[in-house]
């Protein structure tokens, strides 16, 4: 979840008054923000991923004013149709097709406002923008450019300008190879034959999205009139990001001007600030919340969330501000009203749902196995299901075979899923050579085996494995334990001589369950080869067994 640093002074000045600590924490809670840190005038908060509109102090103040009753209903922004035009060339459509422009005039940014704007841009880039891949935003000094604005794809060598913060002209190829921002974000466009570029009427470069703006249109705390460009992969998200930025600026008194887009995308006016209309049946609200409110009361709650809402008989007609992108279904209106009402005022009702509880048969059976193993003196251990091929195969001399393998491991030690419990037990023993012997350990858990017949091409298999290490360990001793376990589980079984790469030849056996349905292979038992003990640094003999429990578990 995105983390934001907020300046409290600035936030209070936008809200119009100071907030006490308890007011602040209640407001944060009602906005689904959690307070992470307070340091003087600065606080750090976490915002949920669905609330793009809360990524700036301006947006937060707007929402708080509603909840505090200072300013309710949909915010009224001054919007006018500007005569600025944007021309989209066909050449950019295969590069970065999402595009929107907007202007905001008469803003008093100041240092705090400028900082807030930069933070907002950055947070949208990181979250919604997926590190600028999906959405990226550029803000320009409107007075330093001449409309119309052209958005086109051009050869990188032909795009030449002074990047923001630099003093020399560079071409786009040089920028992605050498410039700090180019190195960070160049990969998004690097493999395209043409790069996206924004130019004004004179051909001056405004921006090389999604990488960097030009020095020409630099914005300072003194800048009064702004042009905002948003580019990206999806038109819907691009337009939503524009609305969020433009309305945040309008909170500081700016007038929003729409821009007419022409060309390859057809005719389009951005930003489109028309509120979304959604209606909520009061009965639906009551059924979902258990709260008996009238349509008017529901409408009043919604107005606190900066929605416009009117009650028409049993229906609440809501107008959702365009910056709120998190309303998909009337259920979202239900939650919004409920939050304004207060979760802790709602009261509880214990649901009277009569059902019979049951532990899963696998767990029930496993518990029986675990208690028998404990009775035999074994310590239970719990390993990770994720492990490494080295531990699973190399260290215990098993030849590799196809197992579930992760494509993006964070660490080599956890890159596959175990297909056997025994290697984990042996590695556990090798970690504990300093502890007193005898050491008896066991684990009951799932391994994952490849099984093409399953929907997920794999199957979880419940197994038990045990290892016994002592000065002297005989096959008979470990066998006695397996025998005790299986006898008490009511299983008839047989052993058959076989070879296992981890076990001593002639001292290892296959375990066969003799079930009513027939004899099936269930696992193995034996003494661990000294070669394996040496690899693991174990200085005393070890006996092991591992058997599948699934055939014994009634479904």
């Amino acid at each position, binding site marked *: 979840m995105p983390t934001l640093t907020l300046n409290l002074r600035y936030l209070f000045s936008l809200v119009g008054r100071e907030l006490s600590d308890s007011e602040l924490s209640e407001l944060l809670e009602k906005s689904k923000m959690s307070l992470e840190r307070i340091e003087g005038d600065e606080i750090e908060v976490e915002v949920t991923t669905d609330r793009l509109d809360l990524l700036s102090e301006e947006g937060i103040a707007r929402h708080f004013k509603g909840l505090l009753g200072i300013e309710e209903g949909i915010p009224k922004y001054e919007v006018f149709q500007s005569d600025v035009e944007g021309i989209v060339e066909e050449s950019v459509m295969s590069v970065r097709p999402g595009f929107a422009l907007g202007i905001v005039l008469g803003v008093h940014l100041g240092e705090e406002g400028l900082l807030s704007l930069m933070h907002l841009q950055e947070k949208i880039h990181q979250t919604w923008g997926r590190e600028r891949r999906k959405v990226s935003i550029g803000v320009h000094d409107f007075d330093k450019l001449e409309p119309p604005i052209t958005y086109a794809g051009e050869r990188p060598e032909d795009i030449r300008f002074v990047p923001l913060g630099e003093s020399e002209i560079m071409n786009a190829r040089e920028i992605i190879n050498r410039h700090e921002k180019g190195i960070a974000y160049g990969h998004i466009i690097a493999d395209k034959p043409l790069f996206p570029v924004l130019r004004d009427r004179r051909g001056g470069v405004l921006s090389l999205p999604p990488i960097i703006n030009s020095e020409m249109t630099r914005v300072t705390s003194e800048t009064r009139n702004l042009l905002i460009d948003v580019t990206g992969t999806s038109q819907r998200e691009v337009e939503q990001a524009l609305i969020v930025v433009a309305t945040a600026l309008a909170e500081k008194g700016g007038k929003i001007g729409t821009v007419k887009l022409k060309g390859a995308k057809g005719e389009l006016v951005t930003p489109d600030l028309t509120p979304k209309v959604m209606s909520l049946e009061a009965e639906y609200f009551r059924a979902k919340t258990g709260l008996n409110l009238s349509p008017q009361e529901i409408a009043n709650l919604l107005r606190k969330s900066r929605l416009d809402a009117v009650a028409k008989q049993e229906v609440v007609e809501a107008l959702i501000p365009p910056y709120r992108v998190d309303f998909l279904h009337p259920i979202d209106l239900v939650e919004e009203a409920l939050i304004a009402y207060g979760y802790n005022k709602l009261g509880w009702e214990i649901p009277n749902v009569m059902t019979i509880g049951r532990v899963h048969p696998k767990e029930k059976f496993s518990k029986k196995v675990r208690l028998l193993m404990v009775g035999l003196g074994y310590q239970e251990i719990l390993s990770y299901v994720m492990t490494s091929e080295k531990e699973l195969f190399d260290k215990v001399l098993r030849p590799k075979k196809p197992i579930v393998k992760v494509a993006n491991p964070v660490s080599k030690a956890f890159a596959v899923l175990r297909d056997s419990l025994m290697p984990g037990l042996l590695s556990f023993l090798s970690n504990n050579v*300093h502890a007193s012997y005898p050491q008896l350990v066991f684990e009951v858990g799932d391994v994952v085996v490849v099984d093409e017949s399953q*929907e997920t091409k794999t199957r979880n298999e419940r197994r038990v494995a045990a290892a016994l290490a002592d000065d002297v360990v005989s096959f008979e001793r470990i066998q006695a334990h397996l025998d005790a376990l299986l006898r008490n589980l009511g299983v008839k079984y047989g052993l058959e001589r076989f070879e296992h790469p981890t076990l001593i030849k002639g001292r290892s056996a296959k375990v066969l369950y003799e079930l009513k349905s027939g004899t099936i292979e269930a696992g193995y038992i034996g003494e661990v080869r000294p070669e394996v003990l040496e690899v693991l640094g174990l200085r005393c003999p070890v006996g092991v067994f591992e058997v599948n429990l699934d055939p014994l578990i009634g479904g």
Partner: protein
Amino acid sequence: MGLKRISLSEGEIRLLELLAPREGLVKVDEIPMEKSSTVALAHLLAQKGILEVIERQERFVRPTERGVHCLNKGLPEERLIRVLKKRGGRAVLKELTKTGVFESNTEISAAIGEARRLGLIEMRKSDGETLVELKKSPERLPLKEVLERAYQSAVKADEIDPKLLTLLKKRGLVKEERKVELGIRLTDLGRKVLTGEVKITREISALTKELIESGLWKEARLKEYDIKAKPPKVYPGKLQMYAEFLDEVREILVGLGFEEVKGPYVEAEFWNFDALFQPQDHPAREIHSSYILEYPQEANLRDLELVERVRRVHEDGWITGSTGWGYKWSFDIARRLVLRTQTTAVSARTIASRRELPLKIFSIDHVFRPDVLDRTHSMDFHQCEGVVMDKGLNVKHLLGFLATLAMELGFKKDEIRFKPDYFPFTEPSVETLVKHERLGWIEVLGAGMFRPEVLAPFGIDSKEVGALAWGIGIGRLAMVRLGIEDIRDLHSRDLIFLREFGER
């Protein structure tokens, strides 16, 4: 003369038998029995007047650290002679300090003193300088011989020439250690016991099957135990503490009427995300938030009609009244295999396969997310999640249920509260906070009502049916409960830690 019968333990009798063939004072070391038992038994027999224990102090000589050092490097006088030989038999006294052979002027004085005492060198003045001249090479250095003997094994002080010993001690090359030697000697009574003139009663330490069966126990005396002595440490077989905690949670949930369900660790994105209305470009689906697989890669999705309904819901909301996410949904992404990131996937599978209401299910199992394993993060951890689904359930029921569960988990009724939260598949969503005496308000139960977009493809009308979905931060709760501060300890690889966990 009627002598009292003396009771003796088997050990005491064995020691007596070992002493029988020996005359006079016998050193404890010479008795073929473990020394500590010999001493203990000897003292017991002495108390009974059967033998005498005689302590004798012996002085031993051992080299000091400096002594060992000199053995390695040579005694100062040895080194002096080596230097003189190298320089043709003489050297100016002042220059000896510059040779680097001596560590201090004290060493030089000691070397000269000893060499003169042995008549190996002479000193004379010449041109205002003091010259040191070698007179003869020593055949042997008695000091060194003693030092070497003492180094190889402790030598008794009275076996060394007292003059040499004084000198060695003065030069700090050896030190004396005192050692007590024990000797034992049979008394008259002891001899009488051995000859049988004095009768004994056997005192036994273990009551055995043979003694009981033969009736010999009647003549035996059971030795008293030292009940204060520490027993040997044994470790019982034990359930692992985290596994035991998970069992307790299972028990609570079963008590509340929940049925446990399971699903596979390797899961199709369809069940892990799509069926839960998480859009395909949701950050949780990116490679830094979920493990994708190198092998195997693609699921064989079975219920293609369900898949189609889910596609519609994502794209335009289908019949739900939702706008959907408004993007082109991809089947190839949906059938990609991942390690499941949430047990909600199990809930989705269960709801899809069960039609009957009411339904109360839970699962406790492993989930996986790409993370570095450290004190607070793990790539492989447990989730505990469940669903209550029935006609007419609403948010009040959700809160009532959450409060009940929190109370069952041991938190107090008036120390539970709720706050709004966000989960992609529930609306409204809520987080449950409880007050912990040390940690303050902590989040323990995230929950919400499944969204209409989640339920509709399963054929469930969310206008009629409410599905309360909840999840416990089970690992964190276990840590709080078990007093564990490092998340890795929940899967501890340390046998001593596991054996001793819960011991106080």
